[in-house]
């Protein structure tokens, strides 16, 4: 395995727009909102940014093609701006571009922006779109809930978990995220819900009810990264560094091959193992302090606890019900509300997760600050669907941790 980039790149500043139904804002205004916070946090000028990456997934129904929308929104200084798209993992993908640019020495300071303006479609949920000329003839596009709901059918069959037990564990995931989101002023959904509400909600794609699905939001999030040395030279003392950044992309084995049982994410298991190695983590269940995972659906969060090697296979549902991932649990998950309640402006989500982990590490998370000082904070940003996806993992921690 490659040597990795542990501690080679520091986060200089981060920002995040308020997520939600931002009826009055265009994408460029959302990007500016995130950027103003990040640049102030970084304490630099726009002219000091050497390169930028823009993550957006549904560009055809919001910002349009290329890196130009970011360059124009921020009036960047004639630098190279690259737009990246990797389904819902586009946010972490833009972070990866900026981090790698700094790690390579090609840029001293780089910007990662993720944005999505989803509430201009006229209907709720993600926009319907093509998945390519040939796929549209032989594949099933379905909806996001329909694709992820299948995890539950396979999980039950694989692990012999009763439908009611699993549904209750899924409800616990959502009740917890609503409780967390209620404490987050930037969250899209700030209401608390009860287990009964989650269990009795209208069915979207069996067995996923309304509260098993995350919100679809407008929003933007931004990171400015540099080397730890430059960060110090700019006067930073508490330096958060990237411990690991890994990505795994399905090559068709799950969809077309044999062996996958449909109850887990093959890519997440691979990316997690590589990330732990890169970060020097040997016992994730006891070393990871908190996680922000891609909880597009309650069942996704549940099985991801296993794929991150935190819960044992087939037992995440028990850990969930035991409160292990609650805000006051052993390893809080979605302490900011997650995709479920912070919201899911696709291209911004990966950066939003890193933003929360960054705030938590620096003790700047306000009412939702984890009581015990975190050491390693992990974010997991997934794009696609269980049988074909992009899974990215970013682990951040204090310099020296």
């Amino acid at each position, binding site marked *: 395995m490659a040597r990795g980039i542990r501690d080679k790149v520091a986060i200089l500043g981060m920002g995040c727009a308020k997520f939600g139904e931002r009826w009055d804002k265009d994408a460029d205004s959302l990007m500016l909102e995130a950027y103003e916070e990040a640049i102030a946090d970084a304490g630099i000028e726009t002219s000091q940014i050497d390169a930028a990456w823009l993550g957006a997934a549904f560009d055809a129904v919001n910002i349009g093609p290329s890196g130009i929308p970011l360059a124009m929104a921020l009036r960047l200084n004639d630098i190279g701006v690259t737009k990246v798209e990797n389904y819902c993992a586009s946010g972490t993908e833009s972070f990866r571009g900026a981090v790698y640019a700094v790690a390579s020495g090609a840029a001293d300071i780089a910007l990662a922006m993720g944005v999505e303006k989803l509430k201009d479609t006229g209907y709720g949920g993600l926009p319907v779109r093509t998945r390519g000329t040939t796929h549209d*003839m032989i594949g099933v596009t379905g909806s996001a809930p329909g694709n992820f709901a299948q995890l539950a059918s396979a999980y039950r069959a694989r692990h012999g978990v009763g439908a009611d037990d699993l549904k209750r564990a899924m409800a616990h995931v959502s009740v917890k995220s609503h409780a967390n989101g209620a404490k987050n002023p930037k969250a899209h959904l700030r209401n608390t819900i009860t287990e009964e509400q989650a269990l009795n909600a209208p*069915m979207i794609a*069996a067995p996923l009810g309304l509260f098993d699905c995350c919100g679809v939001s407008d929003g933007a999030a931004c990171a400015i990264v540099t080397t730890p040395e430059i960060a110090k030279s700019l006067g930073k003392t508490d330096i958060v560094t990237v411990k690991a950044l890994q990505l795994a992309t399905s*090559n068709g084995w799950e969809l*077309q091959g044999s062996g996958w049982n449909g109850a887990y994410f093959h890519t997440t298991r691979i990316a997690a193992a590589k990330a732990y190695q890169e970060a020097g983590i040997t016992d994730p269940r006891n070393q990871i302090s908190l996680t922000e995972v891609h909880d597009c659906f309650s069942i996704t969060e549940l099985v991801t606890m296993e794929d991150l090697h935190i819960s044992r296979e087939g037992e995440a549902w028990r850990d969930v019900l035991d409160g292990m991932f609650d805000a006051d649990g052993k390893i809080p998950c979605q302490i900011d509300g997650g995709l479920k309640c912070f919201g899911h402006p696709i291209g911004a989500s990966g950066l939003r997760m890193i933003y929360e982990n960054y705030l938590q590490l620096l003790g700047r998370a306000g009412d939702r600050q984890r009581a015990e000082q975190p050491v390693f904070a992990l974010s997991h940003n997934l794009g696609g669907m269980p049988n074909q996806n992009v899974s990215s993992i970013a682990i951040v921690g204090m310099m020296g941790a």
Partner: protein
Amino acid sequence: MSGAGIHGFGAYVPVTRLQRSAIHAFNGWFAGGLKGLAKGEKAVSGWDEDPITMAVEAARDLYADGARNADAVTLASTTHVFADRANAGVVKEALNLADTVMTMDAGGSQRCGTSSLIAALDAAAAGRTTLHLAAERTTPKPASEREMTAGDAAAAILVGPGPGLARLIAHHSVAMDFVDHFREAGEASDYDWEARWVRDEGFAKIAVPALKAALAKAGLDGGRVARLIVPVAVRGIPELLAKSAGIAPEAIADTLGAVIGHAGAAQPTLMLAHALETAKTGDILCLVGFGQGCDILLFEATGAGARPRLGVSGWLARRRESHNYGQYLFHRDLLSLEKGMRAEHDSKTALTALWRNRKAVMALVGGRCTRTGTIQFPKTDVSVNPNDHAIRTQEDYPLADVPARILTYTADALTFSPDPPSCYGNIEFEGGGRMMSEFTDIAPDALEVGTDLRMMFRIKSFDELRGFRRYFWKAAPAH
């Protein structure tokens, strides 16, 4: 070998059986006179079926597990999907038949089913084997008599040299432009003239003489006929023909009106396939085709030959009762419902890509790695086998007839479907190969991991903007 005969038969009846009482419950206030017809049930195809998909199923029923031998494929229908694209050609692709097969569509009359059968028999005399198919999916006007009597079905007869399981004795045809009803090209429904006139001037003066002439040509006495097949929905007509030709009333074949309805130009083939299921050695079968003239065909059953996978009776047993007249109307474009914005998704087909991928799309042909034996769908340049990503080693591997089972599933209420919820999931083929597939003919609460599946050729989506439809394979419950 001399002469021509029937070498195989098959049928297809859609699973949904709409109760005529449900139709009348809705329309009775307006069309009270149809109360007498509000009995029994009619077979109605789903939103994803048409004469092409139904014909494919009838052909698969005929071939069962046997070799798919045919020099030609003909499809008879008065409700052809395409006015300019060989409908039989689509069926040929779905059946994965050789490109050297000749294809031809027959249409234009209720009689086209029997006329194309006669043409196939004539070709058999010249040594050619024809897969004769007939399928119908009509859109009768709501609250019409035809709505009560019509049904959807398809049937298949394999015609070839030699006697087979039923030898052709004789055929006889007359053509007269007797317009008892009509439907101009592009129109959805028929316009009918008075039934009494059709009986007295049509059946009595055209069909009866034709039947007598055919029997005379064959040198047969009417009393020899074991099965008189008169595919006419009007009560009393089969009896009229039987009596006039000296055929015993017991010989009159069940019109299947009570359980399927009248499937237009497919009804003669359907009833013939039904009669062949129970025909005994030496039985004389007399088939009547009526429409702007009359065709009469006389066969003698030999007791030999292949059996269909299910046949008419098998398909009849695969049945789901429906009282949902509204769903029927919507699926036939007779009722406009708000589909929502998700239905606006553009289903434009790249015809270039369709042609390149026609084996995969139309015949569900996957690939099998000649080095590792790995089976996959679709066939790709590089094998999916994680232990050997062999390049360009795959040979064609047809999956359409390979049993499969459910690996994962959902019933999705968010995705637009003309028949919500949209059911789909990952499936696994026996012996290897996986894909994500839509489920059809399945009740959402019947979905379970491990459920046995059988692939069926169906409409995938409609391109309403351009007047095109996509076909692909879906998974249906095997039992």
